[in-house]
């Protein structure tokens, strides 16, 4: 596969930058979140957004769909939601004098699915998303139906009010490229929101990119060069999440899967494109590693008792695992990076 050229990357980078600027008009004061959401989208990944109500999760997704001119559907997950409600159901219809089942596509058949409060649906309904998220198709009554391309699931969940919720199974969590935590806004951002927005009104967002252009950009991301040393760093980092493989993993019960390594590589390429580079770098991996790994490692009981979080363990991991594979002899010491 031919690697992306600098010209292509520069052009794509400009488009992505305009996307970022437009999204910042939708969601104030969340530049890093916007960068990560765009990175995840460019890496063709699904994103789990976790945050308190009213922080703009739904607005972000809606704004993204409008900017990209992609079809979007929102599904409010509730405990009585059935798998067929989201995948679609076969409906008995009379066609050419014969009565037969005709598949009626559900809300999954779109480009961007906003799965609101995904953890309120039953495990049966949640598992209906597994095939759609991984293989981008839906199988009903033994018949597979391909989902449109591109296909993204942007799910939200509320970290509070956990009564009557069903925590997402690990298999499903692993299918999310990123788990992003939305933090509260500072005073300046709040003041800007109060000044520029009215209650109940939606922000005016103009389309920035045509869907075909966006698909081209997605294809370009795959052509970003991933240096061997960066791939090695990703491999060592994922390996170090397993107990016994690193000092920081001492309090991890289960480490990250190979899918995490693939996700790191894809997200690093996407971030390289956003930074108008033809190659991914150590810094890209380090930047996106918390978002990729935080929902993929399971801490042991001791860590939870001590109040340690996945983010803290990942920070320790990133400090422990050096970029280059070789160790330093004892006669040398690490100097401060320039």
């Amino acid at each position: 596969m031919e690697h992306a050229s600098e010209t292509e990357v520069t052009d794509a980078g400009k488009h992505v930058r305009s996307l970022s600027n437009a999204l910042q008009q939708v969601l104030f004061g969340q530049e890093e979140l916007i960068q990560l959401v765009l990175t995840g989208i460019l890496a063709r990944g699904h994103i789990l957004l976790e945050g308190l109500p009213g922080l703009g999760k739904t607005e972000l997704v809606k704004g993204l769909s409008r900017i990209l001119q992609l079809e979007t559907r929102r599904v409010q997950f509730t405990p009585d939601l059935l798998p067929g409600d989201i995948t679609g159901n076969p409906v008995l219809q009379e066609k050419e004098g014969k009565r037969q089942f005709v598949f009626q596509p559900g809300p999954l058949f779109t480009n961007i699915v906003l799965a609101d409060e995904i953890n309120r649906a039953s495990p049966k309904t949640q598992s209906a998303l597994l095939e759609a998220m991984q293989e981008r198709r839906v199988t009903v009554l033994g018949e597979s139906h391909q989902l449109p391309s591109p296909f993204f699931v942007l799910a939200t969940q509320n970290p509070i009010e956990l009564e009557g919720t069903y925590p997402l199974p690990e298999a499903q969590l692993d299918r999310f490229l990123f788990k992003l935590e939305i933090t509260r806004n500072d005073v300046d951002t709040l003041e800007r929101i109060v000044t520029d927005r009215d209650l109940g009104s939606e922000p005016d967002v103009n389309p920035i990119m045509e869907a075909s252009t966006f698909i081209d950009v997605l294809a370009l991301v795959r052509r970003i060069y991933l240096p061997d040393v960066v791939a090695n760093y990703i491999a060592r980092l994922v390996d170090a999440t397993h107990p016994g493989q690193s000092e920081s993993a001492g309090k991890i019960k289960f480490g990250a899967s190979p899918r995490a390594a693939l996700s790191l590589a894809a997200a690093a390429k996407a971030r390289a494109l956003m930074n108008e580079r033809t190659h991914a770098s150590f810094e890209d991996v380090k930047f996106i590693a918390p978002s990729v790994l935080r929902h993929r490692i399971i801490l042991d009981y001791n860590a939870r008792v001590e109040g340690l979080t996945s983010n803290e363990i990942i920070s320790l991991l990133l400090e422990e695992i050096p970029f280059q594979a070789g160790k330093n002899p004892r006669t040398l010491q690490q100097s401060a990076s320039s």
Partner: protein
Amino acid sequence: MNGEHSNDNQWRKLASQVSSKINLAWWLDKLSTPLLIAALAGSCLILIARRELTDFSWFYPSIIGAIILLAIGLLSWWRARGNFESPDHALVRMEASMKMCNKLSAAKQGLTPWPAIPKVLNDGTRWRWPRLLSPPLAALILLGASILLPVSTRSNAGDLPMDEPQAWKDLEADIESLTQEETVEKDYLEELEERIEQLRGQNQEEWYSHSSIEATDALREMHQGELDKMERNLRRAEQALESLQENSGEMSDQSRERILDAFSEALEQLEQGKMKPNSELLEKIKALDPENLAQLEPQQLEQLRESMKQSAKNCAQCQGGAGKGPSQDGGASQDWLDDLLNEGSDNGQPQEREGGKGGVNRGPGSAPGVLGQISPDVNSGDLEGLQSEDLSKSLPGDLLELRDSKHDVDKTKVGLRAGGNVDNESEGGSRVWKESLLPSEKRALKNFFK
């Protein structure tokens, strides 16, 4: 294009330098422990060699040291080579430490042009000087100390002639003395010398062996016995002659007979003894007729007696008999030795010592240090018993007073009274046990004090 090519070369050159630095650091890291061990062993060997070898030369040790150093260097290189980094790895190290977003890796792949060389280069490492310098410095100090420390060469005790036992010297001195004075028959002296030569002829290491010392001691005692015997017989003969000469007229027949018997017996023992007087003297004595001494010239008799006296004196002066026997000169030293050995005995008799009376190779008493190391004599000097005159400063165990007196018993009359008169007299503490103890306890006390 030229600029890019130049950057390429410069980056690769820098990468080579960094990889050389990393590899050198690995080599030094692996070198430190063997170097320290070798330096420690080498310094010990140098010290031993300097002590043991009189003709110690630095030439061969220097060559061997250089070879060992080379071998250690090669061994360390072999151990470190698994960690060596190529220039490509060094490029990664540089781009990581300089946060170049893997531009060098991409440029190496041909995707991007080589970036310009920054003004400040950083490979992400710096020397850890204490760790780096400590092992070679320690090795230098160890070797320097082993070379510079003053070490005296061990004296070649094996090469020096071993000092032979003193008893042999004494016996040889006796032989020389007796030969010079011509006191004794030569056969005895030759035999004695032959025996000493036999003892001397054995291996030097055996000179002070138990058997050798036993043999020496037996030889010396035999020689001493012969000396004593000859001296005694000569004196007896000389004294008999003197009595016969001076008191021939006044002497009763019985006394004369006894003296003549003593002379004959002395002469007979002189003839039979292993050590005989020289043949000339012996012939003269034998030719003498004690019953007809008056026929001899007084000067001749006087000369003969003088010869006998001189021979006896020569025997007494011999070294082999020094301190032995009742000789005139050796008696004082023997007394002195006896006094020394019997020091502390009350009755003048030799005190019975624990550990035996001594033997040929050790003195009397127990061998010192049998039960362990002897403690240093910190209280050196004379120990003197002090009697405390000031009783207020007496120590526990000091005898303060001896008094011959009765116990002060309160004899005030106590007990039942009638009309104000006390009937019985106090008996001190006896009331306590007589009146307060149980019958069984009283019996036990009575039995105890019976």
